[in-house]
């Protein structure tokens, strides 16, 4: 069953013990984020803050929305204890059937409409998330919606946006993002303003698809419908033709300016470190804010894994990598980006390996950008979801010289947030990528392959059958 909005999702989380409602007043300045961060680090519940310092009753903050796979399962309508591989498979199966959205005349996000000079971003309890951040971030767990003016393609992404003053946000959509690509090519040179919407507190699956790497021309709203297994209701913005989720809590409508820059950052980002610094960000002039009565502002208290970002982005990145490898005829079985790897590390299972295949995988994954910079390729007998098996393969099947290939990536392609890169590398988006080939070289004769000494593989079937049949009789559980 799909959730129409974040409120019904919160009710479901509360029933399963996956959300705690805090009635005591908390400070929007660091305290709410610190509580959420600690809960994330303890694999604790999502936290809904009912009473925020300096703000009237009814203005609420929500963190830890998808910070565990339990919550991801619940958002998909699955039992909370659904194993991670099953969540992946269900997500992947649903993605195959995009569902077009339904355009509706109005929706809950239009319960309150503020326009023009009445706009005041400080009306909402926007959190200061980390000590030292460059300001209060309105957009963290958000959906940023823009449109390609030539093709009409609507793109959804998740990018951070910070308050400058009551009607200006500054943001940091990454240089290699689809949003930045369209803005740089089709608005900035022409001196045109780009309509944009910052959506907070939609159905959690909307935010999830916003983290996904669907290709150019693919509408994320169709994939939100796919995951929901029902059309997502969209409603037109007040000041542009952009369509936004009708049940969202808060929608900020505005324009990105083609001839302006603004102070943005620093911010403690998803790799778990504050690697970036204050810089020139894009400027969004806010034209209108529409919001539900008693709005819930959603946030990610980003940091060391796991949290909303590392869980959801890992899932969507894994499936995007799998799709891309299949398109390139790589004999891929499964792809898993452990949340702890914060989309820097991915494990790829293949039917037939070898360094040539491993290198192709590396080149395909990093063709456009090298956000993922460590790739582990394993044979199909290794369960990519089981880190015990992956570490074992890395330890014993990856040749320390022949099994590792590393190369630099062109300036502009690397992830400037990767903590291991030097100050200079980060400034120029320079870096590298490495592949660990943990597969048997295909040129090795089959009869010379080392024989795996696992219960399933080294014992005759009759012995295994006997052991399994008598397991409890041996006094074992």
């Amino acid at each position, binding site marked *: 069953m799909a959730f129409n909005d974040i409120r019904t999702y919160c009710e479901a989380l509360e029933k399963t013990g996956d959300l705690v409602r805090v009635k005591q007043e908390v400070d929007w300045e660091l305290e709410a984020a610190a509580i959420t961060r600690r809960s994330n680090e303890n694999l604790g519940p999502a936290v809904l803050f009912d009473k925020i310092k300096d703000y009237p009753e009814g203005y609420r903050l929500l963190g830890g929305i998808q910070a565990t796979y339990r919550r991801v399962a619940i958002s998909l309508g699955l039992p909370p204890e659904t194993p991670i591989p099953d969540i992946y498979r269900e997500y992947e199966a649903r993605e195959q059937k995009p569902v077009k959205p339904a355009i509706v005349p109005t929706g809950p996000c239009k319960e309150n409409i503020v326009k023009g000079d009445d706009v005041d971003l400080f009306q909402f309890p926007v959190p200061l998330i980390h000590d030292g951040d460059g300001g209060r971030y309105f957009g963290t767990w958000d959906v940023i919606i823009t449109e390609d003016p030539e093709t009409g393609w609507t793109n959804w992404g998740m990018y951070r946006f910070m308050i*400058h003053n009551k009607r200006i946000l500054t943001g940091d959509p990454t240089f290699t993002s689809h949003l930045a690509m369209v803005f740089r090519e089709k608005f900035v040179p022409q001196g045109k303003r780009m309509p944009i919407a910052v959506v907070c507190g939609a159905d959690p699956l909307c935010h999830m698809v916003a983290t996904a790497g669907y290709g150019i021309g693919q509408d994320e709203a169709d994939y939100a419908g796919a995951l929901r297994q029902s059309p997502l209701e969209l409603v037109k913005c007040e000041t542009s033709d952009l369509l936004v989720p009708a049940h969202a809590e808060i929608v900020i409508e505005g324009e990105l300016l083609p001839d302006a820059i603004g102070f943005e950052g620093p911010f403690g980002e998803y790799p778990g470190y504050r690697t970036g610094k204050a810089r020139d960000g894009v400027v969004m002039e806010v034209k209108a804010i529409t919001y539900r009565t008693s709005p819930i502002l959603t946030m990610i208290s980003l940091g060391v894994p796991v949290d909303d970002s590392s869980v959801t982005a890992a899932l969507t990145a894994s499936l995007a990598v799998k799709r891309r490898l299949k398109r390139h005829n790589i004999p891929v079985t499964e792809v898993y980006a452990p949340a702890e790897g914060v989309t820097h590390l991915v494990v790829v299972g293949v039917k037939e390996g070898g360094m040539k295949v491993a290198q192709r995988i590396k080149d395909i994954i990093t063709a456009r950008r090298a956000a993922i910079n460590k790739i582990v390729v394993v044979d199909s007998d290794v369960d990519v979801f089981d880190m015990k098996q992956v570490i074992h393969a890395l330890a014993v099947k990856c040749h320390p010289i022949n099994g590792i290939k590393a190369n630099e990536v062109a300036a502009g392609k690397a992830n400037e947030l990767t903590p291991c890169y030097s100050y200079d590398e980060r400034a120029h988006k320079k870096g590298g990528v490495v592949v660990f080939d943990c597969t048997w070289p295909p040129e090795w004769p089959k009869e010379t392959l080392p024989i795996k000494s696992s219960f399933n593989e080294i014992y005759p079937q009759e012995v295994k059958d006997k052991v399994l049949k008598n397991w409890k009789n041996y006094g074992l559980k």
Partner: protein
Amino acid sequence: MKEYMAWLEEPEGIKGPQEMSLTIKELTHGRCKYLGHNVKATVSPTAIPGADTLRVRRANGLLLPAPWYIKITEELGEYWPGRPYSGIVD
């Protein structure tokens, strides 16, 4: 006396009063804390008569232990003129 915060690239390069254009955030408590202003101001790690307090962070967010001083001479526009993404390799 008001209190502001700024994030500076190389604060150790500023030894005395220096005029500059920068973005500052108000630290006045309440709903509008961290309201941004783009200003022209004299900024200094040493005292300036009649100045407001400036808490300085490095560009990566690290706070300098001692407060600085700021005297705003002009309030500038809401944003800086410039081409988005122009400072990034492409």
